[in-house]
């Protein structure tokens, strides 16, 4: 490594290129935040005029948008479905990696069976699950969404958990068993604490999924009081029609908390969302 005090020209050029690209990528988000402070009438004609900046859009949005309800709904959905999905996938993964099946082949066959779900796009499930929800009387309730969210999370969770557990050394488990731990104490006292990184990844990945999920919600929820964040956003265009400022304020209000949470958990989120590609 060279330790010149003045940066080389290459570094300067590279930095400028990197800043420019980063700015271009951020531009759409900055742009709508800027527009959200603009009078609606000005947006199509003079979006740059600074003398017409206003907070009015935010006032409208806070009074018309069921912010609290949509966040509470989505949070509830996320907490319940992500917890259930992680729990049952972890149980299955533990059995698939650590327990001893009488027939070995069956063990890897079950794992492949669950992993095959990775190849199934949610779109082929929409109509059947809509019918199943109707049949079971779940249609229009939270359960109608929780059930598919849990199911859809199983393949990815299993991929991650089985991959993680396979690499985890068995010594600690063995010594716990020798100390007389039962299955329950073994899993809750030893395995789960050791698996914290994998569990965090799974939780983050799934929470992002549930918060952003739209196709299932658009079909299975017909009651405005059950609306999720994504559903509410999908209605902005109809709700605010030509009130572009209001639409942008609403979009910004949804965007900001998401970006703040991302900023806090940035490292984990990036790891969680790319782990399928990076680790396998």
């Amino acid at each position, binding site marked *: 490594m060279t330790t010149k005090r003045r940066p080389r020209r290459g570094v300067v050029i590279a*930095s400028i*290129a*990197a800043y420019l*690209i980063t700015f271009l*990528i*951020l531009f*759409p*988000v900055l*742009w*709508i935040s800027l*527009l959200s402070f603009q009078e609606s009438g000005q947006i*199509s004609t003079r*979006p740059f005029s600074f003398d017409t900046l206003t907070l009015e859009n935010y006032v409208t949005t806070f009074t018309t948008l069921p912010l609290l309800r949509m966040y509470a709904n989505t949070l509830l959905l996320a907490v319940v479905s992500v917890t259930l999905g992680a729990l049952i996938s972890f*149980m*299955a993964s533990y*059995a698939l990696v*650590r*327990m001893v*099946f*009488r027939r070995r082949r069956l063990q890897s066959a*079950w794992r492949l069976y*669950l*992993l095959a*779900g*990775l*190849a*199934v*796009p*949610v*779109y*082929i*499930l*929409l*109509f*059947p*699950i809509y*019918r*199943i929800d109707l049949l079971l009387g779940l249609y229009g309730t939270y359960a109608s969404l929780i*059930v598919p969210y849990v*199911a859809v999370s*199983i393949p990815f969770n*299993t991929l991650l958990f089985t991959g993680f557990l396979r690499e985890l050394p*068995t010594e600690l*488990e063995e010594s716990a068993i020798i100390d007389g731990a039962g*299955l329950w104490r073994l899993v809750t006292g030893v395995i789960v604490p050791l698996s914290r990184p994998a569990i965090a990844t799974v939780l983050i990945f799934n929470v992002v999924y549930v918060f*952003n999920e*739209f*196709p299932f919600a658009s079909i299975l929820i017909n009651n405005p009081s059950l609306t999720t964040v*994504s559903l509410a*956003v999908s209605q902005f265009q109809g709700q605010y029609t030509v009130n572009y400022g209001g639409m942008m304020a609403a979009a910004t209000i*949804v965007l900001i908390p*998401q*970006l703040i949470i*991302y900023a806090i958990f940035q490292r984990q989120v*990036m790891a969680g*969302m*790319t782990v399928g*590609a*990076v680790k*396998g």
Partner: protein
Amino acid sequence: MIWLSTRWRIVLMLAPAVVIFTALILYPVGYSLYYSFTDFKGFGEPHFVGLENYAGLMQDPFFWRALQNTFIILVVSIIVLIPGSFGLALLLHRRLPGAGVMRALVFAPAIIAPILVGLIWVFLLDPKLGILSKVLVALGAPDTLQLIGGDTLTPYSVALVFIWSSAGFAMTIFYAGLQMLPADVMEAAALDGATGWQRVRHITIPMMRETFAITSVLLITNVFKIFELVYVLTSGGPVHRSEVLVSYMYFVTFTNLQYGPGMALAVIVTLLGAIVSIGYLFLIRERKRA
């Protein structure tokens, strides 16, 4: 751990995931497949009609249009994203001031809900409101330019939006790949007088072949999942000219209530995606062995 592995314990641990997976993933796939061969109207008994729904799609110009649009998006996105985000990863892998922050910022679009991404981009692409449209017209594009909502450009605009939301995601995978390269090889090449470009061309790219393959496969599967962007930007219009396979499936099934053709479309989308996903599983298995 054999003494903990009684049969009922294994069943207890495995059953919840297997039952839910079977009931809500596997069974629905079979259900859709079955209904794609029937004339089900939402009520009454479904009648088996063989391949009629598939044959109907082959006659349906909107289906071909949707397929064509999907492939335009696929080709444009991959051509731009693979070299683009690899280049960006190389750039942000250098010791630039603020490189860490930039990596995080560039990734950010990947966590924004697709439905919100679509809404944001309305204000860049719309012929009347969109800043990008206005800039392009000011730069000499015809006044009639319609980045979305016109006859031809929508799939390219959807590709642009997809590129925007995936660039940081793909960059992050490449960046992780770059970090796994052995440093000594690079140093040896540098000592032998290889220039930066030579090192990238003859060492980095060949050593990261697998990362390129995996990133491509992931991006391709994600292109097949594009739905919300089209839904928000144009709703597939005008007259289904900007539809992609999934958005057209959604329309046929849930707006037109034509379940047979809708499920046939869903099956086609799934098959296209499955071919790619199987390739992906194959790739990660190969790597495990290596």
